[in-house]
């Protein structure tokens, strides 16, 4: 049932992307509005699917150990947020993109950028469904049984989503800068969007790293182990720190900032996918 809903959501995102593109090409506000409404609908169904998975995961846990008190029950609910394996992280990452888009960057979420967000969400869902990713709900291994799991994963992925937005804006910037087109947003607006999304992403990534460190301290007695995922998140952090400093204090703007945003997102992708597949480490339960 959940996977059918997610398949539908995937199609909806695809249609949204096409509608946004068509709205842009024919400069039609009606199509634009239609795409937005449809995006909200897709996001709603996506949210419902996430919650259903959460419920399923919780039910499975109750079978293993029925909670006695309310506090214990609450903890069990928090622990079984659907964020504990690669499949679930893909579904959640796909959710954060349109969610962050409609919450924090509503004004920008249209045209090519809107299409890009919807398309990326669609691709992530497609990968989760058809990429041979194990979609079974698995019981939690002991190291994952921590209240930090929820906040750590949520902040990290929201950060990734913000960086994805900055990346999209940076690509548009580079296109627009080379061959300006009236149909694309003006460069000044894109430059600003890159900066804003980066600030938000940087804050969330930092929170993700900090919560991960506190968790690692209680789980393994080490807040930092130079695990590949940790290291790559730090590399990503260095790159975006460079971007912020270059822009705020050296007055860099435009192309150079856009290229840094592209580089940063490459590091994000490697932190998420590359580390899981190419480098073994403490986070390897993700695969």
């Amino acid at each position, binding site marked *: 049932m959940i996977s059918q809903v997610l398949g539908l959501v995937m199609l909806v995102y695809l249609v949204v992307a096409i509608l946004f593109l068509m709205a842009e090409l024919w400069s039609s506000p009606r199509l634009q509005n239609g795409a937005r409404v449809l995006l909200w609908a897709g996001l709603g169904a996506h949210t419902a699917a996430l919650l259903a998975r959460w419920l399923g995961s919780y039910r499975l846990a109750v079978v*293993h150990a029925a909670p006695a008190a309310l506090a214990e029950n609450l903890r069990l609910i928090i622990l079984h947020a659907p964020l504990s394996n690669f499949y679930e992280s893909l579904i959640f990452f796909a959710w954060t993109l349109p969610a962050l888009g409609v919450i924090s960057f509503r004004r920008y979420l249209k045209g090519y950028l809107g299409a890009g967000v919807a398309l990326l969400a669609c691709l992530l869902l497609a990968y989760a469904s058809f990429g041979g990713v194990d979609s079974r709900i*698995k*019981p939690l*291994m*002991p*190291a994952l*049984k*921590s209240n930090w799991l929820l906040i750590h994963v949520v902040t990290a992925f929201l950060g990734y989503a913000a960086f994805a937005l900055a990346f999209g804006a940076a690509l548009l910037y580079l296109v627009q800068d080379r061959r300006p087109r009236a149909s694309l947003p003006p460069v000044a607006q894109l430059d*600003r969007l890159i900066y804003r999304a980066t*600030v938000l992403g940087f*804050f969330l990534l*930092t929170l993700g790293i*900090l919560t991960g*460190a*506190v968790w690692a*301290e*209680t*789980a*393994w*007695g*080490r*807040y*930092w182990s*130079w695990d*590949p995922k940790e*290291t*790559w998140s*730090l*590399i990503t952090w*260095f*790159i975006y*720190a*460079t971007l912020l*400093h*270059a822009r*705020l*204090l*050296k007055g860099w703007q435009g192309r150079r900032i856009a290229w840094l945003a592209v580089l940063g997102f490459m*590091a994000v992708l490697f932190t998420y996918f590359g*580390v899981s597949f190419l*480098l073994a480490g403490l986070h390897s339960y993700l695969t």
Partner: protein
Amino acid sequence: MVESPASAKPKSWLWGSLTSIRLTVFLLLILAAVAVIGTVVPQNQPPGQYFMRYGEGLGGLLYHLGLARVYYSPWFLLPMGLLALNILSCLIHGLPQAFRRILRPFTPEAALALPERGKFSWPAGVDPRAHVRAVLRQELGQFRQANLSAQEIYLYERGRFRPLGPYLVHLALLLILTGGLIGKFWGLEGSLPLDQGEVAQNFQVADAQHPLDFQVRLDRFQVQFYEQDGIPKEFRSDLTFLKDGKEVARATCRVNDPVSFGGLTFYQASYGARPEGPVHLKVRHGDQDQSLELPLRRLVDLPGGQAQLMLLRVDGNLQGYGPAAQLAFREGSGHPQIFWVLQDHPELGEQPDHYRFRAEAIPFQYYSVFQVRRDPGVWWVYAGFILFLPGFYLAFLRPAARWAVVLEVAAQGGGQARLLGASPRNREDFAASLERLLEELKKGTSP
């Protein structure tokens, strides 16, 4: 790193470089590059691994250059130290000025010195005050009013403490680095494997035994598995701490739930199984069945004498299939063959040709492995984490802005007003507010 102030004294070359943002950007990129090396080259392996993987020449080079422990080598520590120095210099350089700036009150005089952003006027017989107040309250928020001889000034200030933000963030980073250093020099980290019933007086730090100033006994170790998958559900150790043979405290140590005693913290790190005596095997070769007892790591001749067998290790629950023994088998001078034999599932697993091994009994006992640690730097690190949050909020999410509306009433009635304001590092929002403000202000006052 920090906004460069217009200092009167020319900076020396060294101080100028240390406080330069160029150095910061350079160091950040270097650190990123070195960190990449650390994830590509496997870390903390014995030298032989590097020779095997990269060959004699390159492997030796990697090892001797310190790239096998890159995060503890000068390649990483030097730029990191320089970055810390860079941050510290910027703090020393800019913090006093930031303090002066936030302590400088927003007086009418300061307001009049702000750049002028727009003008509007009103004819005789109109009193613009009520309208101006309403607009300011709605568009900006709470404002103050001051009267100079011929002028009436409305003052609005926001984000006064913003200049502190970047300094708090960088102070937080310094605290975290300090915590790391403290942990490195005054911390202690080791591991302690314990059998059930065993009492430990030492634990393993690097290659040496480090004495505990108390004893710790593992009363009971339990591991539970999920029914499917064989994933461990929970493992826990019941510990008793003793001093001079007397019980002082009891505690249960679980994953994500460490136990502290006597200045050390015990983390449930992992567990293992060790054989409690020889594994009993049935060997079928051709149509002959024979029994065999296999002690740990001892070469045993198989009946017939053509082949040899060795017990390498045991596992309490191999992938959810129950107890298993790992064996090495060699026939004549052929290559050794390594395989698992499962006690409850004799049908599983590949075995050497012409032989069939069945485990009758795999006696084993679990042991518990603890990470034992003392790190006085952790609180510095956490202090840094906590300080980072308000710092980031002030620096990025609380843009500073100062606005002033100066009303001048002419002697013959009517008058004009000037809108002044500034918002460093927030041009776009400022421009948008300016446009709105001016429009609203003009709406109700222009003739």
